[in-house]
């Protein structure tokens, strides 16, 4: 124990006795380590920020989008939906939708609005809260009935128009009767095809009467608990290839998106980390260089230590310890700088900062390895010296 403590105090004393040289060696490691820590943390926080956007949104859902000629009917879509219900038991709810845009007018006021033609299942998935009236239903058939989104309601209210159940509004020249008004509903791009607050929701079959282009269809499916999205996507793929052979079908799940983000940020983190690693490597070469200079300048000390009883391993350990202390000290200072840099970057991008523990372990661990690796050669060079040469040479 005494031996190690003294080894460390001697190393620190030696390092402090040539402060400029030690500081220069330290600088390379500080920069390298700061780069690794900063890069890995920035990558980590970028990923966290991206993932947060999708967190909890439409977990367990899978979306199927395709476009077909105008002649296709709602009946064909519903037929496809029923087929999927039967052939893929992992799907619990499938909502069929199509969307359009237009201008909503009432008593001289107007607002731009989206319209969603949806089957009852959409409401089962979204579970929106009603402010007044009722939701539309499949039983409405192609009747021009609609539920009004919260934002549209607010827009008209600001003009002094209180829209309510029973009001006949005009959507793109077609009269539509409001059967309900919704509460505020946060947008969820995975589950609802348009922002609900800015939309009218109408029965699927009624969209043709509203003169909408009904060639783009979407099925939003919710999988049963524990059903893997990849399996469902595969099953959907093969079913849809059979049912819609000539059609481009896009199948997507939020998990897939999240996985893509993770893959991309992993590449980002690795790239950034590698840049830091290269800086650390350069720092390590600097340490080796300076340790070699130190060994050749302290030949007499080495010879003297050998004369008074230092073994080969004592000399090796001494110089290895000095290199290691340099690298560890550099690594720790770099750690602080790196965290500060990453913190600054997340503030700049407006993300919350979360420290990546892996980066701390990585930074300190890699600095240690660099110290051992680049300190080894100078240490061996020191231990190889012949004491007679060093003590009698000038």
């Amino acid at each position, binding site marked *: 124990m*005494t*031996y190690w*403590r*003294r080894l460390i105090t*001697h190393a620190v*004393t*030696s390092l*402090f*006795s040539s402060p400029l040289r030690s500081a220069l060696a330290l600088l390379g490691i500080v920069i390298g380590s700061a780069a690794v820590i900063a890069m890995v943390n920035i990558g980590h926080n970028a990923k966290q920020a991206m993932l947060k956007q999708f967190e909890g949104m439409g977990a367990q859902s899978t979306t199927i989008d395709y476009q077909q000629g105008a002649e296709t009917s709602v009946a064909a879509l519903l037929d496809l939906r029923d087929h999927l219900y039967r052939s893929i038991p992992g799907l619990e709810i499938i909502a069929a939708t199509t969307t359009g845009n237009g201008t909503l007018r009432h008593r001289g006021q107007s607002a731009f609005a989206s319209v969603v033609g949806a089957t009852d299942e959409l409401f089962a998935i979204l579970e929106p809260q009603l402010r007044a009236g009722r939701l539309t239903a499949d039983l409405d058939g192609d009747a021009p009935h609609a539920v009004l989104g919260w934002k549209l309601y607010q827009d008209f209210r600001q003009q002094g128009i209180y829209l309510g159940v029973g009001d006949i509004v005009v959507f793109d020249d077609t009269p539509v009767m409001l059967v309900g008004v919704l509460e505020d509903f946060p947008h969820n791009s995975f589950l609802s095809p348009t922002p609900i607050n800015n939309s009218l929701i109408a029965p699927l079959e009624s969209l043709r009467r509203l003169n909408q282009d009904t060639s783009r269809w979407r099925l939003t499916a919710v999988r049963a608990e524990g059903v893997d999205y990849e399996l469902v996507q595969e099953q959907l793929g093969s079913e849809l290839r059979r049912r819609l052979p000539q059609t481009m079908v896009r199948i997507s799940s939020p998990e897939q998106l999240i996985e893509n983000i993770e893959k991309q940020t992993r590449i980002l983190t690795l790239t950034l980390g590698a840049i830091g690693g290269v800086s650390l490597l350069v720092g390590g070469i600097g340490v080796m260089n300076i340790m070699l200079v130190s060994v050749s300048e302290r030949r*007499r*000390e080495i*010879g*003297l*230590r*050998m*004369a*008074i*009883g*230092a*073994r*080969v391993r*004592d000399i090796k350990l001494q110089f290895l310890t000095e290199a290691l202390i340099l690298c560890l000290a550099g690594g720790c200072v770099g750690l602080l700088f790196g965290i500060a840099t990453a913190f600054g970057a997340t503030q700049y991008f407006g993300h919350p900062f979360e420290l990546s523990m892996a980066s701390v372990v990585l930074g300190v661990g890699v600095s240690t390895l660099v110290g051992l690796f680049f300190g080894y050669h100078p240490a061996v060079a020191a231990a190889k010296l012949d*004491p*007679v040469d060093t*003590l*009698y040479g000038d």
Partner: protein
Amino acid sequence: MVLDNVRKAYGHATGSVEALKGINLSIERGELIAIVGQSGSGKSTLMNILGMLARPTAGRYRFDGRDVAELSADQRAALRNRSIGFVFQSFHLLPQMVAVENVALPLHYRQTSEAEAGERARRALVKVGLEARMHHKPGELSGGQQQRVAIARAIVTHPRVLLADEPTGALDSETGEEILSLFLELNRNDGITTIMVTHNPEVAARCERCLVLRDGMLLSDTRSFDKHISLA
């Protein structure tokens, strides 16, 4: 310490130089020996072999009955640490450490506790008369004081042999005289075998035994006891 036909050759680009050409020598415990000879006669080489810093090219060297050639490098290091103290012409103190740390350095290589090492280093410094300069760095000490620190470092392990290669070579005659007295005292009071290389005949005259080297060979080996006889 017994040297049996010891030779030492140094390899050069132009061939090899034989610094020692067959030295036979036996040194008893507690002796005080001076080695003299012209420059290049092999004095330092002999000291290095005695101190196990260099190995003979041929011949045998026994230290305390053990053949040094059969010892491993670590064993030789341990033996140096325990049994031999070195003093050099140019002191070889570590500039970054204060006197007491320099003196304690050999104890680092033999697992002595911090407190004990400090205490022993202090006592060694008291012995060489430097208690007032314990916490000075070598750069703040005179040549004579630095050599005293070096002597304290050599005796801190209570060695049996003290090897001093021109210990007064870098000092003025007065200071050299003080250092010499210190060696004589250590030899007399503590019974440390002391072997000293010197160019000064007066110094040599004060030693009991004097070895004269010339061209790597032992020219003469006289004891003051013999001198008395020849004088009579």
